[in-house]
């Protein structure tokens, strides 16, 4: 009797799990059209407002602009497009602690010469500046308007962007 009950419960559980898991996956998983690979670079500080017109912050990224790089399919993505990286990217918060981002929203444009190849992603690392405001390099970072807009912190976002360098990464997107 007990064995029969166990079998019955196992059957019910299996029936519950298989289609339920599929339904869960279908409903929870984002509706992505594709997986892409491309070069990731980083930038920091610089302009307060990006190409989309809103304030740029950690969790945002730039890519090509279709008017400059019509050859890049990703250059046609609209502002606010969400991408999810295959693995998280480490950044820092104001006190220098590690924070990891794997979702980014498109809010800026760059690389007008289209030199970084298709599906290029430029990750924004933030505005943290750990140098005193009297430092001649305060809020300076190569590749962006300098001096830019930054906040006093224990971390330095420009160093984070430089140390990130250039990485070949996979991500999901539209």
């Amino acid at each position: 009797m007990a064995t029969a009950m166990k079998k019955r419960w196992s059957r019910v559980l299996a029936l519950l799990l298989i289609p339920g898991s599929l339904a869960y996956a279908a409903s929870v998983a984002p509706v992505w059209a594709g997986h892409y690979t491309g070069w990731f670079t980083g930038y920091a500080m610089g302009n307060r407002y990006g190409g989309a017109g809103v304030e740029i912050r950690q969790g945002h990224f730039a890519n090509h602009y279709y008017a400059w790089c019509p050859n890049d399919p990703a250059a046609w993505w609209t502002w606010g497009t969400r991408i999810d990286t295959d693995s998280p990217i480490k950044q820092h918060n104001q006190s220098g602690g590690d924070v990891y981002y794997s979702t980014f929203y498109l809010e800026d444009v760059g690389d007008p010469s289209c030199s970084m190849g298709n599906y290029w992603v430029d990750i924004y690392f933030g505005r943290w500046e750990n140098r005193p405001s009297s430092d001649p390099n305060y809020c300076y970072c190569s590749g962006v308007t300098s001096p830019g807009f930054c906040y006093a912190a224990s971390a330095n976002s420009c160093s984070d962007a430089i140390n990130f360098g250039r990485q070949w990464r996979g991500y999901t997107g539209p």
Partner: protein
Amino acid sequence: MPNRWLLYDSGCAVCAALAQEVETLSGGRLGVRSLRDPGVRALLTRARPGWRWEPMLVEMEGERVRVFAGLAMRWRLVQLLGPVRALRAAQAVARHGGPLRGVDWGRRRFLNIAFVFAVILLLFRIQSARINTNSLNLSGNDIAGIPEVRQALTLKEVYRLLLQYAGRLSEMPTVTGLQSIDLPGDTADAGLDGRRRGWIGTLQTDREQITVRVEDGYVREALSQPLSEPLPSLPELVIDSPQALRQAQSAYPDLKPSSDLKGQGLHYFLGTTESGESVVGILGIRGKQRSRILVNSQSGRVVAAQTYTWAGEGGILYSTDGGRTWFASDLRGRMVKAIAISPGNPDVAYAVAPDPGGIVVYRTRNGGANWEEWGRLPPEAGDWPFDAVVVGNKEGRETLLVGTWTGVWQSRDGRSWSPVNGELSGPVQWLVGLESQSGERLFISVTAGEDRGLYAGTEDGRWTRIARGVYRLSPSVDGRSIIAVDEETPGQALLLQERKVQAIKVPASLLEAAGDFARDAAWLVRSPSGGVGLFRNDTDDVQWTLPGPIASVAVSPAYPTERVALAGGFRGGIFRTTDGGKHWERVLAWPSALIPGSDEIYEIVFLSPEKVLAIQGGRMTWQQR
């Protein structure tokens, strides 16, 4: 107590039987109604425009209507029924035979409802930030007992929707960002009434930042991320987007919706100025330039009007010793896109740059130190030059050709310009002239539109398609061959010569090549993956010798003997080799020390073995106008 209905497909006998059983099991907590009922469909059309044929749960309380679907519906059902009843519902599904053969997928979805009830019990510990529910407070005429709802929301409506959503969270967050976005189907007239269908909002608690996506009046997605950069809370606006738009258009009547495919129509955002003033931003165009008007969100005062334009940075660097040392030319503060050299005079070159009024061409006659305006392309040419080349004819007359969004434009004197497109349309992103015995032959790459492809032709505008697709062109140092890299098929390229087109293999991520392609077995190649390397086309081996982000590469005209080459970094300076690319030395660490700019060296061009030009990139920024 709200009225709750589970909507089911009455065209499916099993679904109907199952729905009745679930209703009984609910103990009065839940009723069932058919999706085929016109009243139900009318309700859904108003409360959830674009609804799909799937099981849904509707709750009505006063004027408030909530529609749950997908995971949110399952969650809600478990909350309403409790775990015991949910499990019994699952058993009922099992009795009805589970997933049925011969039942269409839509009907299977109905049958799967009960299965997933209990699965939710297992999954409810998973912190899914995704919510798929309509929680908009509805108002307006009630035609059939169902309140009216609009697809597109104003800034204030979406702000309140975010607050409603925030009320469900354990820790009450504040709104720190809100902007409208394009949704599929939006056109250039979207936002003219101060409303948009798509929005992204940012909520912030002490520990996390939640990005909420709103589509057609309901919260489609909410994603939690760690809080790194605390942003100031944006107070609820007094001035809503339609009113802010009227204020902006009153002050700036030339504000128009944009046809920019990154964001069409008029867009809205809630943000702060650099002085911390809370503003409603309206994004559109003024003239041909992307613009934003900022209106104080509390008083309605117009605070600023800005355009997105080149920041007055960038320009041309020059060297007179083969790239060892670099100087700033007097062409600075301009975003220069491409350089074309005169084949007949090593002191003459042309630089093309975007300009608010179109495209401007500068010319140097002393090897790059000094530049003067040589001409302006007509407005029909657009405002973005992709590439430029100078070609000579048999009589020695030179013509400058510029590739733009509207094709190829040519001029001999900078004053009169004519298109040489023939029947072609689309952006000419790369443009190279090839010296041949019969005169100059042109190769162009059209990278978007119906005519996308690689073409060969002459100045008279007759083009022959060589290949379909997107090709990036690199000229050989002797001007007698071209490498055309197929950007859509990694590792494939074409070697173009006067009367020969040869398919070749190249490194998979190659974008650009430099060297003597027809006669030398080893070329310099540039790839975003490897940097710059030496590629042996006879063995297909590549050795990456300058790793790092590199934006451009060029070899000296004396390359076959002297092996001097230069590489322009992507925010990394300028590099030089004297041994054909085996070893590199950084000769300029920070181009911005000479000319402020992006430190992205778009192009390097040798006028002679000694005279070299490099483009220091420019940047865009929002400027008051």
